[in-house]
């Protein structure tokens, strides 16, 4: 509201419409943070200081990067739109708590600088910024990242095995499941027995893997508030479950383990990097699920969420073109 107007009480001339909804960009971002809060707070309670430090480092890095970029480029400050905060929180939740601090800071910087600002800021980026940051550090410091879950007081899992073996060892339950699968199920790793820890308290993995139940709760909040379209998580989780079953594994385990829920509800649904047409969103969600499942069962890493979503981000504009809605009054699409 321009100050002159209030001072002079002069009516403002504008084109219609003259009223607008109360939904704002920062309001939407705030709801995303609120929806993430239960899982994030529970991660902090469960993991303690390393988790709190992770949030501070990641959000601090994304916010400072965006603020500094705007200041140096002499652009309007955009920190209040809330998107840098969401990127920071999402990035933190995608990282194992004992990740070295400089990796987190680098991921935050890359997420904002190369994931968003270089394209022109919010609205112009092709890829999900948080995933760009995560992908960058995953690839750049693959060794450090792979060992991160087992660093410090975090121990790798040692799960008692059957079939004449003593135990199977892996960084996460997903890694253990992969090892068991590679051995043709020789260890007899019981996937159904993992539901409870994965749903409520799982300390092996990223901050976002602590409680699947709280992520689902957050996803429901976003769906109920109309902030995300059900088509993306439904397509994603549906395809993941169906393919896991088709590949001979337990669908529920594969949905609640790893980054699928964080990806399906919070990452793939990022407005800017996902399609806008309804059918395109469904196809995109299914694509994420398929790539995630294929990556998990046949890829080199047990966790394939990051690259599944990034790849689908890349073809989102194409999906929008293919699934362009029919305009009212047009019987056939007229190219």
């Amino acid at each position, binding site marked *: *509201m321009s100050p002159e107007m209030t001072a002079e009480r002069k*009516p403002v001339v504008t084109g219609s419409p003259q009223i607008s909804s109360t939904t704002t960009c920062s309001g939407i971002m705030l709801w995303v943070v609120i929806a993430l809060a239960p899982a994030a707070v529970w991660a902090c309670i469960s993991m303690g200081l390393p988790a709190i430090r992770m949030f501070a480092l990641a959000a601090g890095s994304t916010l400072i990067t965006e603020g500094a970029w705007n200041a140096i480029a002499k652009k309007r400050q955009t920190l209040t739109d809330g998107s840098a905060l969401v990127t920071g929180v999402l990035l933190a939740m995608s990282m194992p708590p004992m990740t070295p601090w400089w990796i987190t800071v680098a991921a935050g910087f890359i997420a904002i600088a190369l994931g968003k600002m270089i394209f022109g800021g919010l609205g112009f980026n092709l890829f999900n910024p948080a995933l760009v940051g995560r992908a960058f550090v995953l690839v750049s410091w693959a060794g450090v990242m792979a060992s991160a879950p087992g660093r410090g007081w975090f121990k790798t899992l040692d799960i008692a095995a059957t079939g004449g073996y003593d135990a199977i060892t892996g960084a996460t339950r997903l890694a253990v499941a992969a090892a068991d699968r590679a051995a043709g199920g020789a260890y007899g790793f019981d996937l159904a027995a993992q539901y409870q820890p994965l749903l409520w308290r799982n300390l092996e993995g990223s901050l976002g893997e602590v409680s699947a139940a709280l992520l689902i709760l957050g996803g429901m909040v976003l769906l109920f508030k109309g902030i995300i379209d059900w088509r993306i998580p439904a397509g994603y989780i549906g395809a993941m479950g169906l393919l896991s079953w088709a590949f001979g594994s337990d669908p529920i385990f594969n949905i609640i383990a790893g980054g699928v829920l964080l990806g399906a509800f919070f990452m793939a649904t990022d407005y800017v990097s996902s399609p806008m047409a309804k059918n395109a969103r469904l196809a995109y969600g299914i694509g994420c699920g398929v790539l995630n499942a294929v990556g998990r069962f046949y890829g080199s890493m047990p966790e394939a969420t990051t690259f599944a979503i990034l790849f689908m981000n890349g073809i989102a504009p194409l999906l929008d073109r293919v699934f362009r*809605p029919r305009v009212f009054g047009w019987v056939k699409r007229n190219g």
Partner: protein
Amino acid sequence: MAKGAFKGGIHPPDRKAATAGSPVEWMPVPSRLVLPMSQHLGAPCAPIVEVGQHVSRGEVIGSVDAFVSAPVHSPVDGEVTAIAPCLTAAGSRVTAVTIKPDAEQDLGSFLRVEADDPKSAVRAAGVVGMGGATFPTTVKLSPPADTPVNTVILNGCECEPFLTCDHRLMLETPSRVIDGAQKIAELIGASRIVICVEDNKQDAIEALRAAAPGTVEVRALPTRYPQGAEKQLIWAILAKEVPHGKLPAATGALVHNVATAAAIADAIDTGKPLTERIVTVTGAVKRPGNYRVLLGTLISDLIEHAGGTVGEVGRIIAGGPMTGPALASLDVPVAKGTSGIVVLTPQEASPLVEDDQACIRCGRCSEACPMFLQPYAIGNYSARQDWNGAGRFNPLDCIECGCCSFVCPTKRPLVQLIRIAKAAALTKGVKP
């Protein structure tokens, strides 16, 4: 086939409570009337009176021979004091006849229009679409011979927030509305009459049902903006889409506003020309209400009659807040299409965005668009003046209902950007 529910649309706060219970009351004759020679779409009229001439209530003061036009009548007995350009609510400048009313007025009498047949009476009475489109009614009553119209749909949805003029008309004089609908059906040879009202006006629905004969359907439609948009209304009743580039008559339906129907009934039954209309004056005014206002009354006089504005004024709108323009000056006259004057406080008005805020691609605009367009895409191309790019997304199908701008979280002026793209598509001949 979901009858009664078009896809898309929004639920803006309806804000009708302030005036929904206010009976229509006459606004006293103001000290002067300014009558634009163009209160309709189509050829403007030429003044046929001279300065200093005395005119009577109902006398034609402007006319033209063109088919798509409507004559203008003097609403009062009075003297022509000026013929000069005036500003209209839409912001254009047109020739207008200024009349100083006589001290003595009898608003109960008027010069009857002379016509040989009902359709000529409607033409001679200067009736135009009173929902705001102001398309000359006679033209709509003359559909091409090859497109038979079977259904007359009366639009009493009044889906615009704040406005209650149609609501009060239907509630207070339902028989005039029904009479008008029957006259329209007779003129075009339609067999079915449907009067549509949003279900937030139950009293008006009951009044119409009580007054309607068995041959007239009164339909309660879900309250959702823009339920009263012509194409969406036809879809609600017939489940047919008006084909791109075709007239609504292509679906076999003709839509008229309820106030237009009442004016048609008046013209045919009593020879009454269109010289006044009901205007909802509401928002931040002292005495919000529904006023029967003589055409040509200055909006400044009308607001003064409503007790003046209250507190800080953000915008003053002619019509409803979803489609009406904000006024640059209050010295503009009430015209045939002026359904309301809405005074918004700065807090109620949409925020004025200082810089261009980027589209965050949330898709809310596409979801809200009742024409299934992708407003963000047209807006983004239009903002960088790529008219071919914008043209690929069918800007000409936009009905300018305002849903996209309303829902946009970053408050992009989407309708405005689409209007520019439309103009470019028309002038540069870009094909959709």
